[in-house]
């Protein structure tokens, strides 16, 4: 019984499947340098970054049923922590990646501590309040964060003789791929561990998990804090890649959260990798139809509703046809 469960939970690495994974990875690594088109590279950076945000989101919602409706605020925490450390105290952005992660993890730990012992949607609502409080604090603490005037952020300094000047899009792209590989590996190991089993038990039936002596609050807190940390690291990368931070709703408010939430849901809950495919689809689509403007968000909303009603598994539901 146990063995059957264990094998069912692990993907089978047939040669064909290995080949598909390698082909996709090669495409990811090789398309930007061969296309040699800065516009395409920025789209690839956006797609990979949002795909990673979506995957981290999926770690919370798909594996533990935790909804973070202030997600953009957690990105802001990471981005601003690293940017402010560099701006005011001259701390290297390389260290800033960890500072951003730590700032967001602290925010996650705090929000988690006060809400995760409660049932229902307290987490979703409170993260939203906390994120909005953070965003308004950033715009109000004008003298420290430069508020809505925008905070200029330095690029990463050179490392091992590689130049990270802002124009070097490909360097930034490969840095993102390295960060992304580490983030995906960390999440993969986490969901394959004993903690991962506890996450799934909580998602399936929290009460039953509790009655089997799973300390649900502790595991939820672990999941949420780890996800917040990874979000903060990526947020710090975002700050130094983008070069300017402003606390607008589009950048760090509800619209941004909805974008990432949609990517996670379109990718398919509990799939981790699905979000990356969804991000390429959605971001590619919106870049192709630039004149959409307000229709773009209508489309995101309709997608969310459609996924909820007709395709709860998202793209991951197509897996049996292509995988």
């Amino acid at each position, binding site marked *: 019984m146990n063995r059957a469960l264990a094998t069912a939970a692990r993907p089978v690495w047939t040669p064909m499947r290995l080949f598909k994974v390698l082909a996709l990875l090669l495409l990811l690594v090789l398309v930007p340098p061969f296309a040699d088109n800065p516009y395409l590279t920025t789209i690839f950076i956006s797609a990979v970054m949002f795909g990673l945000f979506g995957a981290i989101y999926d770690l919370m*919602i798909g594996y533990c*049923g935790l*909804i973070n*409706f202030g997600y953009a605020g957690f990105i802001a925490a990471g981005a601003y922590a690293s940017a402010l450390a560099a701006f005011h105290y001259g701390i290297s952005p390389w260290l800033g990646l960890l500072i951003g992660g730590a700032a967001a993890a602290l925010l996650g730990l705090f929000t988690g501590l*006060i*809400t995760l*012992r*409660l*049932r*229902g*949607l*307290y987490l*979703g*609502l*409170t993260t*939203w*309040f*906390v994120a*909005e*409080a953070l965003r*308004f*604090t950033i*715009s*109000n603490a004008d003298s420290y964060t430069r508020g809505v005037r925008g905070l200029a952020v330095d690029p990463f300094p050179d490392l091992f003789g590689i130049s990270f000047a802002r124009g070097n899009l490909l360097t930034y792209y490969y840095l993102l791929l390295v960060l992304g590989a580490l983030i995906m590996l960390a999440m993969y190991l986490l969901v394959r561990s004993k903690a991962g089993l506890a996450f799934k038990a909580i998602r*399936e*039936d929290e009460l039953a998990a509790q009655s089997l002596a799973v300390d649900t609050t502790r595991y939820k807190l672990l999941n949420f804090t780890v996800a917040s940390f990874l979000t903060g690291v990526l947020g710090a990368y975002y700050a130094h890649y983008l070069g300017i931070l402003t606390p607008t709703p589009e950048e760090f408010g*509800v619209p941004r959260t*909805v974008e990432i*939430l949609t990517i996670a*849901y379109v990718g398919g809950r509990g799939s981790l990798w699905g979000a990356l495919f969804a991000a390429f689809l959605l971001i590619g689509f919106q870049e192709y139809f630039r004149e959409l403007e*307000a*229709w773009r*968000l*209508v489309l*995101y*909303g*309709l*997608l*969310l*509703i459609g996924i*909820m*009603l007709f395709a*709860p598994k998202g793209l991951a539901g197509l897996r049996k046809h292509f995988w």
Partner: protein
Amino acid sequence: MDWSILLDPLILSELVFQGLVRGSMYALMGIGLSLIFGILGIVNFAHGEQFMIGTYCMYFVAAVLGLPFIAGILFAGVVLFFVGMAIERGLVEPLRRRAGRDWLVDSFVLTIGLMVVLQNLAQIVFGTRRRGVTTLLPGSFEIAGITITYERLAIFLTALAVVGLLFLFIRFTALGKAIRATAQHAEAAQTLGIDIARIYTIGFGLGAALAGIAGALLISIFPAFPTVGYQPVLKSFAVVIIGGLGNIPGAIAAGYLLGVVEAYAIFLLSAGWQAVLTPLLIVLVLIFRPQGLFTVQGERP
């Protein structure tokens, strides 16, 4: 700053009255949210967009047709009642048949999708221009030294009347009793012959109507524009957390409380920092009294 002005009875009562006017909106919105949560178990994120449709209804009736404001209130209430029932039948009902255990999160995400769609459709149809009605009822009177405009008084009294009527409806009519039974235990209500699908639809319609009435009432403060619902929905979620999720009397009390606290905050703090105050309040409530300030039973949510 000279803190003694806080003790000035004139300013004190002026601020309390301002707070009660704001609180009227929060109470109406909060009751709507609590009603929908209590009956259907949905945390309705599109509540602010129902408020927004209410503001457009009022603009249409008062500014375009030039009818008195009471007609606008009725119109907004009726329109939103049907909009709410349509949402329940068209979107919520199909989801209920599918979602099962994931209901709470899935229905929340469904309403997020609905919020995004309604907000951006409004932007496409109406544009971002703010359409306000500056004064619904001109004139004012003075009582014990403080000036009260007729309009503010009308907002306050209308909200009280709506809350009162709703209370009577839920307490004494057969339909109201069926609603309470469904909210308490849906399966048991069903075995007693209550058509719970119908109650769900009516419940969502009622909640939406309350949001629409709130939007229509407050048009002089919140003019009609696509994202007008954002602040009201943020505040009304604060109200239901402070009052206790699903607790209607709690939502009323918390609504007026938050209104008065905010009136003081506006007076004392600069504009930007008030926006930080409500979230802080929520965090404090969640740390010290997560079941809400006005919940009598000791059970933790």
